[in-house]
């Protein structure tokens, strides 16, 4: 059993934090883990992605082969589409609907969302609204992680434990906000009526 996940977003949106939480949880559960990430120049407001691979068997490549990803988890809709060719035909896209506009030719967000909905399995979330509800707009990445939690091969308890570990040096309020963001994302995903390809008209 294995799971290949592309994490996507813009430099500074907290992709590496999502990766840290899932990877640490996976290690604790005795899984093999490889996680390739982007440092350096692209982190300055550019497109960033992380290839996260979990498996019960040996993992060879640090990069996910195109066509192998089970899930694209994106904090930003334009970035969700950038890695679509990594997704297996029955893979899923979970993306925020909130655009991060720092380029002049940023497309109409509705067109992007329509394109995401063309994926046979998808879930689009208002991460900003939920993050504000959780107490900090900086917790959007944890909203997305929460939305994916039910579909990951690691346990929810392991994820929340490492959210705590990740944020505890910033104080209990920040930890609480991130845990709440995670819970809100999870609740939305549970309630979501994503449409399987076969169910479409």
């Amino acid at each position, binding site marked *: 059993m294995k799971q290949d996940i592309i994490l996507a977003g*813009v*430099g500074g949106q907290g992709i590496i934090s999502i*990766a840290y939480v899932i*990877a*640490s949880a996976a*290690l604790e559960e005795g899984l*093999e*883990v*490889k*996680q*390739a*990430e*982007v*440092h*350096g*120049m*692209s*982190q*300055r*407001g*550019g*497109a960033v992605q992380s*290839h996260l691979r979990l498996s019960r068997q*040996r*993992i*060879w*490549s*640090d*990069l*996910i*082969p*195109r*066509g*192998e990803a089970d899930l694209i988890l994106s904090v930003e809709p*334009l*970035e969700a*589409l*950038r890695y*679509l*060719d*990594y*997704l*297996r*035909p029955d*893979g899923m896209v979970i993306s925020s609907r909130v655009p991060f506009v*720092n*380029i*002049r*030719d*940023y*497309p109409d967000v509705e067109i992007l969302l329509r*394109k995401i909905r063309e*994926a046979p399995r998808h879930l689009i979330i208002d991460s900003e609204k939920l993050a504000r509800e959780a107490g900090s707009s900086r917790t959007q990445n944890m909203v997305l992680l929460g939305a994916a939690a039910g579909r990951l091969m690691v346990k929810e308890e392991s994820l929340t434990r490492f959210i705590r570990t990740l944020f505890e040096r*910033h104080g209990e309020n920040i930890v609480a906000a991130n845990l709440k963001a995670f819970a809100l994302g999870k609740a939305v995903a549970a309630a979501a009526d994503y449409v399987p390809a076969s169910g479409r008209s």
Partner: protein
Amino acid sequence: MKPEILLGDEAVALGAIHAGLSAGYSYPGTPASEIMEYLIKAAAKSQSFVASWSVNEKVAYEEALGVSFAGKRALVSMKHVGLNVAADPFMNSALTNLNGGLVVVPADDPGMHSSQNEQDSRFYAGFAEIPCFEPSNHQEAYEMTREAFAISERFGLPVMIRLVTRLSHSRSTVQPREPRGQNELRHGSSQDWTLLPVNARRRFKALLDSQAALVRLSEESAFNSLQLNEKDRLLGILASGIAFNYVQENLAGREDSPSILKVCTYPIPEKLIRRLVEHVQTVLVVEEGFPLIERSLQGLFGIPGKTIRGKLSGDLPRTGELSPETVRSALGLKPLERLGLGGFELAARPPQLCAGCPHADTFQALNKAVGEYPKGNVFSDIGCYTLGAYPPYRAVQTCVCMGASVGMAKGGAESGIHPSIAVIGDSTFGHSGLTPLLEAAAADTNMTVFILDNGTVAMTGGQPSYASGNRLLKMIEGLGVAREHIRVIEPLPKNLERNVLVIKEEIEHRGLSVIVAVRECLEEAKKKRRSG
């Protein structure tokens, strides 16, 4: 000991610590920075070894040499092009009969994620005739670093660990082993370390004499492996470093897998390669970086009766990183089914200056002042401010290597460019800008040097800068720049008109001017606020 999740960079750092490291030195550069970041954190915790950022890679290497002379173990790390800066001490260190172990770790950046070129450091190891390890995974990065120290002390040679971005910046599990202690202080032999011709000739011969033993060591290394498929005499794969993973990603578990030779040590393990080549008709060479092994197999005239395929033959791309897909295609396998955009075009999102970045204000003022001189040129350097080349600024016209802006501005000025302007950050100035400015000051060249002092090495994550603040101003004056032509501006929107005026005055000055734009990096200011 418990397994840990580490970046490839960190696995090397931990391997060095567990090999009895006494000191590590480096200059920040992607994708190598996290080696030193890890060492610095670990040193602060244990207080048992030295780990520090150096002013540049050459100095870092020389500091490491001093440690080795003292009989202790040293690690020096840098991005690939940093080894160009350190090439002088690096090449000569192979002749010194090192005392304490010295391991040099250049991190290559195939695909140029954050670099100016794709140079392959394995050539440097061959050039200096020293051993090199090329790890394919994190555990190997850890183990090879430990073994590299042992080999370094056994042969008196520096040993290279060649990393690439995908390993440096990928995390995976490392199972550490019992650490060993550090060496005692013990001076090196001055006859070996004083490279006067009489000593250097003797030492060079010793280096050449050790080559056969190094090849044997490489041939016997447990990091290499050969799996022959007795039934398939057609195709054999030779894969080095992380390229081996891409081969296995596509072939592991298949019963009809062709023969595979994994090569992770240099000099090239000749006997192993001979066994593969004799077994098959066609050898596909898969290596990340330049076609080093492929070219040596192919030679000028090839191997009679055998076909060598790889990057030179066009089976694999000559530029950029390898990937599971490019290797899959070279193996002749069908691409995996996948979703795609179906022709939908996505807007690119290149890196850019942060909103409110001081460099943005500097470029705005600079553009406004220089706009009046159609024949001017702005020579830039390596750092966040290189992003000033992108719209909306389009403020700089060159970026070549660390410190090049100042020397190029002088050459440009001497060829008739006016205004000839250099733009360089404070840390890059400390790294390689002092010496060309010394020359420009002595000649009083008609040029204007901008030093953007944001107090940090911002692009690589905020490492300390040695040439900042008051020390920077004193250095500029000490190099002989006239005091009245050292101007300090604060790049803020409200100062725009005033700053444009200063720039124009100094452009009009027929001689050398230095304008220092002082404002703290926003990211660093944020970090300080957050940590209280």
